[in-house]
């Protein structure tokens, strides 16, 4: 059926998450033979980004993959001195997944029939018994409510269509389509191609500013929904690694251009002044606060040099330290939650370290401390996978290991048996958490509750599009919530939409708390959006939904990402388990882990040295020679950062220029052209002769 793989590899990696991909690239780069397999049909594992359809599908499946497994007895492949350890392929990556689409007419798309029944996710469900009244009320209020919101533009045409739209008919249509949808659910979970009567389609298109369900799903390809949204510290390990390894050439980034927060007692977001320029232009803090804030930030940026300033607080809370600096409460919250991003219980040293890290990243690429990868975080593992493939790594999707083979004597893992019944030997095996044999698992470790929203506008209106990092400090029983919002300029959603990710660390084994992720984000929705994602808007919610400044939720999804617990001590010495994305904001832990694993396996090799650009690869008789052209390598300074840094910065700038002012796109390209012209001059070989002839002619050179 499928082509058999080679019999033996230096390294086998299972799972194409970021850690594994980085390692895959690193091992291929130094010439190790690498097999990289993934049970999914996509790259990235827990780190993947999906378009809307694939996302729907993924959520519906709960992350469980049906592998087209050959029937065979793996144990038969094992010799006498070997032990077979099975790996169960049915790990659930996500739990409690649900999807809601608020768009008109067919508002309901459901994940798995199981979920629908458990959570009553699809709101307007006139067929259900107990919710019938509220449900149908909603149905009627929705079509009337939304034209109201768009009323400020009394367009004759619009009004006409609205008037000619009999509500009764709408409800009827709704009933019909919902009924069909439910029928669909019964048969098979099917999210794409919702059944619309042709006549209704026309009607929908003519209505209001919100896109119709069709219009939304027609653009399914243009969404990139992350499973693990994270931002990169501009001076974090990942950025350094991208530069160092030249993997950055596969990627484009945008600045996370603003940091927002919610101050306690307020119900609106406000920008956090982080940089000097922010502090200067912030309208939310008084000049006095500005001065103190600047003083504290300046101190934090170089705190080691001033031990006298924090010594007495060394063992005390960071909050106390901030308090002692006469910072206003507002400014304290800014630093604690949005700049240091530490807990209220963090010590002064932790806080200072975190603040310093933030400040060091600030300003490297524009007025921001963070970068966001265009097309979503899923691009990152793919970029490293590409590097691995370029350097000869073998990749195989939709394949996993049904078990590992251990040498009984040494206890080492000598091979895997893949889902095609092939036994593939390896010197080292690296797996992600979901591919760990059950025997090495401990009980479930933790999970991250996630919500993803597609909205009609940004959470905080601005004259230009931003990538926003929003921290909602803990409030009452709710823990700290991290929100990342990105727009079409990041190529994560089509124009006129915004994509919002929300993350909440959910404590395990805490039964008395709300478990359903949708419930957990209710409060967050109240803060960020107009109305709720589901149709069960409480009666008082009407006032909120008329608040036009806040975005409306057009589509939303909730799920819990599982993090499996692994007893790492019990692992065979050449089996390594890479951690999942977790709650970390950046990538430093992941990168640290990747480097550590690499150094354990290849202590004498360089971790991801700079990969040559394609034009530097010289082909010779023996195929291609990956040694990069010497002169070029020497060109870059010793530390490598300087030159690459500039290249990178230029890349970034071009991306930004292009979108900020359309007129400048041509301009940028034009400059580049003229630069090429200039380089031609510089290359002119007879320049010296020219000087000479000029001197002969009496010019003074």
């Amino acid at each position, binding site marked *: 059926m499928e082509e058999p793989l080679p019999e033996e590899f230096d390294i086998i990696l299972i799972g194409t998450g970021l850690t594994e991909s980085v390692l895959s690239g690193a091992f291929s780069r130094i010439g190790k033979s690498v097999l990289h397999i993934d049970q999914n049909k996509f790259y990235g594992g827990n780190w993947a980004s999906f378009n809307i359809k694939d996302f729907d599908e993924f959520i519906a499946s709960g992350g469980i993959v049906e592998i087209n497994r050959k029937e065979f007895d793996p144990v038969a492949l094992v010799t006498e001195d070997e032990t077979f350890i099975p790996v169960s392929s049915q790990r659930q990556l996500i739990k409690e997944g649900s999807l809601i689409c608020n768009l008109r007419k067919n508002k309901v798309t459901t994940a798995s029939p199981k979920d629908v029944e458990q959570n009553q996710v699809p709101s307007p469900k006139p067929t259900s018994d107990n919710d019938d009244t509220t449900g149908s009320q909603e149905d009627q209020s929705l079509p009337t409510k939304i034209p109201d919101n768009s009323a400020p533009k009394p367009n004759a045409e619009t009004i006409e269509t609205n008037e000619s739209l009999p509500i009764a008919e709408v409800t009827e249509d709704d009933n019909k389509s919902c009924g069909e949808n439910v029928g669909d659910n019964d048969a098979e979970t099917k999210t794409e191609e919702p059944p619309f009567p042709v006549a209704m389609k026309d009607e929908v298109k003519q209505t209001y500013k919100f896109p119709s369900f069709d219009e939304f799903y027609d653009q399914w390809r243009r969404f990139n929904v992350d499973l693990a949204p994270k931002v990169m510290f501009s001076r974090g390990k990942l950025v350094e690694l991208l530069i160092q390894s030249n993997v950055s050439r596969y990627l484009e980034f945008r600045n996370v251009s603003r940091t927002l927060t919610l101050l306690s007692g307020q119900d609106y977001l406000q920008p956090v002044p982080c940089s*000097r320029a922010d502090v200067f232009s912030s309208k939310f803090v008084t000049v*006095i606060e500005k001065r103190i804030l600047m003083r504290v930030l300046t101190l934090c940026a170089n705190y080691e040099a001033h031990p006298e300033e924090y010594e007495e607080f060394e063992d005390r809370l960071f909050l106390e330290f901030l308090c002692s600096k006469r910072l206003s409460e507002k400014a304290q919250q800014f630093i604690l939650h949005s700049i240091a991003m530490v807990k209220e219980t963090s010590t002064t040293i932790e806080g200072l370290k975190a603040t310093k890290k933030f400040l060091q990243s600030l300003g490297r690429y524009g007025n921001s401390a963070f970068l966001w990868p265009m097309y979503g975080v899923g691009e990152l593992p793919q970029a490293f996978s590409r590097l691995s493939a370029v350097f000869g790594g073998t990749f195989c999707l939709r394949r996993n290991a049904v078990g590992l083979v251990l040498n009984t004597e040494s206890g080492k893992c000598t091979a895997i048996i893949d889902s095609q019944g092939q036994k593939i030997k390896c010197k080292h095996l690296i797996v992600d958490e979901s591919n760990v044999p059950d025997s090495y698992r401990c009980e479930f470790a933790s999970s991250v509750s996630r919500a993803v929203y597609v909205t009609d506008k940004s959470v905080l209106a601005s004259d230009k599009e931003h990538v926003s990092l929003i921290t909602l400090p803990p409030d009452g029983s709710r823990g700290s919530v991290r929100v990342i919002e990105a727009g079409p300029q990041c190529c994560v959603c089509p124009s006129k939409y915004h994509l919002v990710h929300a993350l909440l660390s959910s404590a395990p084994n805490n039964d008395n708390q709300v478990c359903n992720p949708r419930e957990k984000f209710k409060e967050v929705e109240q803060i960020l959006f107009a109305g709720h994602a589901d149709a069960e808007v409480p009666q008082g919610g009407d006032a909120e939904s008329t608040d036009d400044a806040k975005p409306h939720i057009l589509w939303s999804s909730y799920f819990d990402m599982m993090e499996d617990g692994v007893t790492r001590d019990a692992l065979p010495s050449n089996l390594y388990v890479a951690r999942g994305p977790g709650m970390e904001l950046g990538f430093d832990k992941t990168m640290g882990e990747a480097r550590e694993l690499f150094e354990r396996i290849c202590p004498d090799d360089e971790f991801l040295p700079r990969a040559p650009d394609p034009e530097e690869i010289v082909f010779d008789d023996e195929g291609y020679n990956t040694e990069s052209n010497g002169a070029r390598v020497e060109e870059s300074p010793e530390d490598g950062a300087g030159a690459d840094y500039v290249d990178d910065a230029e890349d970034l700038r071009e991306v930004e220029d292009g979108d900020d002012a359309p007129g400048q796109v041509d301009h940028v390209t034009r*400059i580049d052209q003229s630069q090429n012209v200039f380089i031609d001059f510089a290359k002119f070989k007879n320049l010296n002769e020219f000087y000479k002839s000029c001197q002969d002619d009496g010019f003074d050179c």
Partner: protein
Amino acid sequence: MEITKLLLAANSDYSSMWNYRKNAFLHLKTLKNEDEMKSMFDNELQFIESCLRNNPKSYGCWHHRCFVMLHMMKPNWERELQLCDLFLQFDERNFHCWDYRRFVTNHSNVPHEKEIEVTNKIIASNFSNYSSWHYRSKLLPQVYPDPTDSKRIEEKKLLEELELVQNAFFTDPNDQSAWFYHRWLLGRGDKEQYIVSLIVNRSPPSVFCCLRKPVKMFNGTLSVDDTTQTVDWTSSMSERYSHLWFCKLEDGFKKGQQHTVSCEVESSKLSCCLEENCQKATVCLPINREMFQDHTSQAKLSVLEDELNSCNELNDLEPGNKWVMLTLVLLMRAVSPKQHSEKISTMLDALTEIDSQRKRYYLDLRSKYAIEDCIVETNLNENRLNISGMKLTQICHLELVPTLTHLNISHNCLQNLTVPFANLFCLEVLEANDNKITNISGLKDVPNLKSINLDSNDISDVKQFEYLKTCRCLEKLSIRSNPVCESEKQFPTTFLLHFQ
């Protein structure tokens, strides 16, 4: 052309080569048709751009670009503006580019409001940028002019600007560009011109006129007994702008007759009566505080007081910041010098400690304030000024008091008298004893100086006294307790002989 192109590509600062190209273009323009020239100019612009990419601060490049743009038939100003945006992104403080931007906006009539927006943006991204603050100070008075003074901005806008700049210096009080802009906002307005004093000499018939603010050319109307005279005013100061102007009267004054001389400029008029049997007459207006306030003085008092308060707050937060303190001093002087005199003095003392590299500057500033206070409190019509015992380190404002006959600068900390005293036409007695004077070069050509007391100073070089040769009326010079007296035993006799 190709040769110059190569040379300039290698070194774009070679202005002769640019000029050579300019000539070539001017010549080609007479030969080629419009389309050919257009493509040549377009290529040239691209070439300049490539040079600028290499050397964005080349005078030659930017200048040549202006030349090309001016000679093009249909210059594309829009594109040039974008070029400026781009280069300012690379380096927001590239003043060449700012200059070129002004050139472009002037020629393409970009509305000033739009340009203010540009400065807004650039300042918001980094306010340590004097270029953009400066550009702002040029644009604002054109968009929001003060109805009474075209060089200033209307009050509402002024308050907004003050708030903006306050944000800047509260964010970073060490950033001087914000402080300089702050100073511009508060001061440096156009003062009304008026005549401070008149000196009339019977013989030779002449008039000295002292003006409040220095001018390049003075064309005041002079009349004697209500008859307008045709006179040539000449400056009696060496600077380009002069406070003091001098003229000879063709007809002269009749002997033993009383004359009324009056001088008029703008809306100010001053008259002086030359009595029958007097050789000379002087008149001066009392000099008030306003006279001396140059920075931070044009804004309304309430505005100044607000600024003073916020600076005081900043000073509490950030003790020992020199910019804050200096601004405080200036503001206190502007608001109420008398009320704040003690604080000004302690603050200046502190500044000499904090910013010891500019110690002399602060000491001189204090001397200046002391002299100003003294001048304001003295009735100048008595023609005497006593500024002794004030720890002065410099003498200033002499140009405003040309009518003095007696000047006492003794018991100070003066180290030299290099400021010219020559404009003190009437000065007869100068008491400069008990200082640390080593140099007296300023005492040249003081026409009526009769007596100088230089006792207890630090003059050690006989040659210093050569300057006094030019004071023709000098009768008495006292130089006791100077180093020179010990080293040059024979000196007193020989030197005094010279005067006799």
